[in-house]
């Protein structure tokens, strides 16, 4: 696969949430949800963003869409720095970048019929003549595997999987170039997860979509993503083509995550690396490498110096002092 041009370029993204306290409700501290994250998403590619709860992956997704204002850093989309767009410009720009939400029960307005949901999206961005929008809505419904007859129903009349399909139809309605899928299947039953994932990867091929696929589960990501970025405590630990990452993880954290993924072959057992303790508080992250407090191989240097992402293989970057020579244990 040849390297394609970058559609999304994220550089030095930082997000601090203020922690207020005391009698005067002053800012006493900051939660460092995202600290200095940089990555690119190439046109037509699906980049997986994986991490535990609290790793800041959802915040990255929201920052990229500017649903949240970043503390620092730039997000460049197709040559436009979206951080510098005015509010009105940003609203118009949203036609190009959409989001699929995690919870299909909360992401649809209970008082809006599906027709209204899709029709409003089309009307908002002046897509098609008003008379043709009904046809477009039917087309979208069929595209996500629902029927035209269901257009006049309310969200509560659908199952979780169907609701998620409506969420996908809504995101697709404006013909976006780029979609952030924020844990799109983690709220669904396992049997439905596969259907929705297959739908997403079919649509991706059909519509030539570029996606940022956020998940906490490496097994889910493996099937859809071209490249995968692993996040821990607001930082990217490793970023690599999916095959390379699963085959030859470089970072100890990635190794630990992968060891938790069940393998289908009974004979071939991965060595289980159980991480002890919880993810540290993002208010007071460890010095040096943020992972060192739970890393089974941590050494003195890990507490002193923050490791930077460095190339360890073709298109493969990892932030670890100990494994950077490209020799994972």
């Amino acid at each position, binding site marked *: 696969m040849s390297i394609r041009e970058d559609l999304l370029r994220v550089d030095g993204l930082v997000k601090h949430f203020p922690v207020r306290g005391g009698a005067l409700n002053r800012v006493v501290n900051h939660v460092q949800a995202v600290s200095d994250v940089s990555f690119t998403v190439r046109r037509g590619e699906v980049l997986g963003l994986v991490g535990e709860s609290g790793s800041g992956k959802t915040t990255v997704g929201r920052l990229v*869409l500017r*649903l949240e204002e970043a503390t620092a850093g730039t997000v460049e989309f197709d040559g436009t720095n979206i951080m510098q767009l005015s509010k009105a410009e*940003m*609203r*118009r*720009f*949203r*036609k190009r970048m*959409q*989001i699929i*939400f*995690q*919870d299909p029960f*909360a*992401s*649809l*307005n*209970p*008082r809006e*019929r599906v*027709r209204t949901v899709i029709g*409003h*999206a089309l009307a*908002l*961005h002046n897509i098609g003549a008003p008379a043709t929008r009904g046809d477009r809505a039917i087309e979208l419904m069929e595209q996500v595997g629902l*029927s035209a*007859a*269901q257009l*006049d*129903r*309310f969200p*509560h*009349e659908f199952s979780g999987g169907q609701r998620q399909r409506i*969420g996908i139809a*809504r995101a697709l309605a*404006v013909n976006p170039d780029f979609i952030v899928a924020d844990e799109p299947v983690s709220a669904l039953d396992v049997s439905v997860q596969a259907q929705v994932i297959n739908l997403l990867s079919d649509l991706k091929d059909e519509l030539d979509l570029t996606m940022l696929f956020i998940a906490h589960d490496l097994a889910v990501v493996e099937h859809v993503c071209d490249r995968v970025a692993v996040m821990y405590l607001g930082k990217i630990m490793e970023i690599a083509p999916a095959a390379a990452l699963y085959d030859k993880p470089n970072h100890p954290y990635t190794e630990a995550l992968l060891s938790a993924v069940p393998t289908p072959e009974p004979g071939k057992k991965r060595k289980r690396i159980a991480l002890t303790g919880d993810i540290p508080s993002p208010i007071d992250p460890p010095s040096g490498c943020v992972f060192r407090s739970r890393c089974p191989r941590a050494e003195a240097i890990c507490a002193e110096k923050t490791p930077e992402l460095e190339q360890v293989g073709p298109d493969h970057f990892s932030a670890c002092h100990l494994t950077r020579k490209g020799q994972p244990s």
Partner: protein
Amino acid sequence: MSEIEVGVAAYGDVRGSGWRSELQRASRVMVAARWPVLAVAFLLFAAIAAVFGGWLAPFDPNRQNLVLRLADPMTSGPDGGVFLLGSDALGRDVFSRLLYGARVSLTVGFAAITVGGTIGITAGLLSGYFGGWLDDLIMRLGDIQLAFPFILLAIMFLVVLGSGVWNLIIVLGIGQWVTYARIVRADTLSLREKEFVEAARAMGDSTFSIIFRTILPNILAPLTVIASFNVASVILSEAALSFLGLGVPPEVPTWGSMLAESRDTLVANKWWLAVFPGVAIMLTVLSFNILGDWLRDFLDPRLRERT
């Protein structure tokens, strides 16, 4: 596809979405629920009384007849007429006054709720959605207002603005806004964080559209019930203010003022003077309440199958 799904799909096909079919559904559902029909019937009757009271009333509501004062209901009055609901301390026909009274009472009740509701809902939405200093400002204003007895504030306003029906409506409306603002603010605060609001933002909706098109329809339900209760307190407040000479002039009949006047004669067993305006107010409130309750269920898509 299972049988159930086929059934649901067929149901989905026949269901239209135009306002005409909504209206048909409204009337069908209302008849099925029975009570709302009675409520509508009474309110319609009261509205007709309010508009055409002058033609319907058997007597001039201000015509005094000191010989026939405090007459029992159903006794014959002057000119061959009958005091259907008796006469008051000045010999005026209670039934005629009740019909005339509907005009001021219903106008003031309805308009004041509209004014108060509009101010309160807007304030609550802005307060809850934007938060920060705006929230503080609006909510503290509300607190300050609630710290004063309402009647005192109303007197102050009316003394400054002068008496009259429209000023009365504005003052009574302002008296109600805090209730609405607080409820709306609380609901907005929780809805603001919902993913479907986020989705509207991600779609590129304007803030105005998010507040009034996405959030507002989701918080209207409890308000219909509160508004229906509020009508009663507004009608009674109107009576109190009119009694103090700050509302409508004493010769204009209103339900509230009739009730207020009845207290002198109640001890003398002249029950009809208190009971009939009281019943009129009660029926109005009850009707609004039933209707508000029904409207809430009717507007909730989750209750469509049952309603």
